[in-house]
């Protein structure tokens, strides 16, 4: 394209201004992309919940209220239930005191594999999990993060129970995004008894149920809730998808705010870029008139001016997207799994985030360039000559 030289020379005209505007666009695209990884992470998470047969059973009063452990057995006996496993939040912190950096639960070692066959934990590892009281199965994300491997020994200090427990890692959930850790429920139970709590654990936080057949999910949920009716802890059952979208429901408002902020940031850079474009056009009015006089057509002038704004913003936007990938890698390592952000804190740059970032910068350039470029291209030569000279 023979006009490229002209476009680039004009961008180099005021290098500081070009750099500042480019930097503003880059930072804005970076901010927008990092923010967009949050809703994108939630979407990816919810879409990844493959199972349409899993049911969550928890206390109707809320997740912080437990149910008697004995209820698990009743659920397991319901017709159509393939497996059921009681989960208790351990809230174990590794290394840094007082901070839970990945979700960890005490589970029934002999049941959990049957509830989560789709997690593809090798049968041998599930068997080891049952064999060793202090065994733990860890998601690959957490394994990678701390450089653990099967056979390693680790210590977790519970932020919920008055115990520190040593574990040996006997298995891995082979999923790059899984931060989970499962430990053996009996191990925690014994530790609590040793602490002078004769009743031991005694509760279930959530009972995860797998129905043998998706058709029967609704019937099972009804039966479970009927079973607990008028007891001290009435239950509320829901599908896994519904559970997680409710669980992260409070994040929806947050996401709305994120989207609002990204929209405003986008608008803001349009103004910044438009300002640069119109300053560039204004201070060059004389030159543009002369280009027009020597035969540059209106369309050609419009195109080169628009190209100028678009080249600047798309190069800056590309830099923004590339830095997003870098920054999120760092954020990912530092933030890891985050209890309050959940999948929003995963900071995974999905391809949709990249595409949105690139489109945003193109859009910014065109929108910013179109008005000044149109005005400059349309203005009659003699009007400019008369004004400028």
């Amino acid at each position, binding site marked *: 394209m*023979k*006009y490229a*030289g*002209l476009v680039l*020379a*004009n961008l*180099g*005209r005021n290098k500081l201004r070009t750099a500042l505007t480019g930097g503003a666009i880059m930072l804005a695209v970076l901010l927008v992309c990092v923010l967009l990884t949050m809703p994108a992470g939630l979407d990816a998470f919810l879409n990844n919940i493959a199972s349409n047969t899993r049911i969550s059973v928890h206390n109707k009063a809320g997740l912080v209220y437990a149910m008697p452990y004995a209820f698990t057995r009743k659920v397991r006996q319901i017709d159509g239930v393939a497996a059921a496993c009681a989960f208790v939040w351990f809230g174990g912190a590794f290394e840094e005191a007082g901070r839970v950096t990945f979700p960890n639960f005490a589970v029934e070692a002999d049941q959990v594999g049957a509830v989560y066959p789709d997690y593809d934990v090798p049968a041998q590892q599930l068997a080891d999990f049952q064999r060793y009281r202090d065994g733990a199965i860890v998601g690959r994300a957490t394994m990678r993060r701390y450089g653990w491997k099967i056979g390693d020994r680790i210590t977790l200090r519970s932020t919920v129970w008055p115990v520190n427990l040593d574990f040996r890692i006997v298995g891995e959930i082979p999923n790059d995004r899984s931060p989970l850790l499962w430990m053996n429920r009996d191990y925690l139970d014994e530790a609590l008894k040793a602490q002078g709590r004769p009743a031991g654990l005694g509760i279930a936080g959530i009972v995860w149920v797998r129905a043998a057949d998706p058709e029967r999910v609704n019937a099972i949920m009804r039966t479970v809730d009927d079973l607990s009716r008028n007891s001290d802890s009435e239950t509320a059952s829901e599908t896994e998808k519904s559970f997680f979208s409710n669980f992260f429901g409070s994040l929806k408002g947050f996401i709305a705010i994120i989207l609002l902020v990204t929209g405003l940031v986008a608008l803001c850079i349009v103004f910044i870029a438009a300002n640069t474009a119109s300053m560039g056009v204004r201070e060059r009015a*004389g*030159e543009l*008139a*002369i*280009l*027009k*006089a*020597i*035969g*540059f*057509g*209106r*369309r*050609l002038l419009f195109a080169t001016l628009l190209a100028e704004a678009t080249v600047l913003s798309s190069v800056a936007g590309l830099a923004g997207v590339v830095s997003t990938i870098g920054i999120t890698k760092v954020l990912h390592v530092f933030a890891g799994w985050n209890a309050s952000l959940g999948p929003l804190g995963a900071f995974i740059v999905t391809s949709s985030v990249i595409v949105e970032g690139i489109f945003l910068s193109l859009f910014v350039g065109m929108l910013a360039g179109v008005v000044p470029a149109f005005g400059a291209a349309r203005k*009659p*030569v*003699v009007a400019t*000559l008369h004004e*400028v*000279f």
Partner: protein
Amino acid sequence: MDATPGAPLIQIRDVSRRYVRGVDEVHALERVSLDIPAGHFVGFMGPSGSGKSTLLNLVSGIDRPSEGDVIVAGQRLNDLSEDELARWRARHVGLIFQFFNLIPVLSARDNVALPLLLTKLDKAERVRRAETALRVVGLEDRLDHYPRTLSGGEQQRVAIARAIVTDPDLIVADEPTGDLDARNAEAILDLLRQLRQHFGKTVVMVTHDPRALRFVDDAYHLDKGVLLEGEEAARAQEAIRVSAGAAGARGPR
């Protein structure tokens, strides 16, 4: 455009140009008629605001008359659309202004090559022609210089090179010496005269530089938008000649 020497290249027929400024109307030109023969070096002279630039802009097709016709080499400029007119200028006219001639971020060579971007010539040929044009104006050793590193006279010569690079028949120049000292002004006037002498170009120039009288073939005098004729024109010319003589007497040898 092929022009037989002596035949009128430019015919200006009863041309008026009015500008509307708010409620006022400025009569920049009033019923001007004039023939300019091919191969002549013509000067439009007159006081500031007399309509010289307006007339030149009509001749070069960057403006349109309110009334009347401008015909260049048989082409009625009024018949052309805006875009056709732009293409016509690119093909047939070389333009030189007083200021802002050059794009500051392009080298002399690239500035001169600008009008060639509008042609189908390839890059190598564009560069070759730009360098040739710069050689014609005596700047073969300034090819890679940027405008700000050139003197005013050199910048104006780059502008002349750009005006001739497409080999147009008509060259128009609006106050090309307006910003230059005496020596550079004469060099530019001489260069324009050579374009006419050696290359057969028709050159139309606006100036209020009295020195120009020594270089042009014909001088036309405008006053308040009217073309002076006969007695009046002769008086205007005499007045300029006197002031030129005075300037020459005062100026250094």
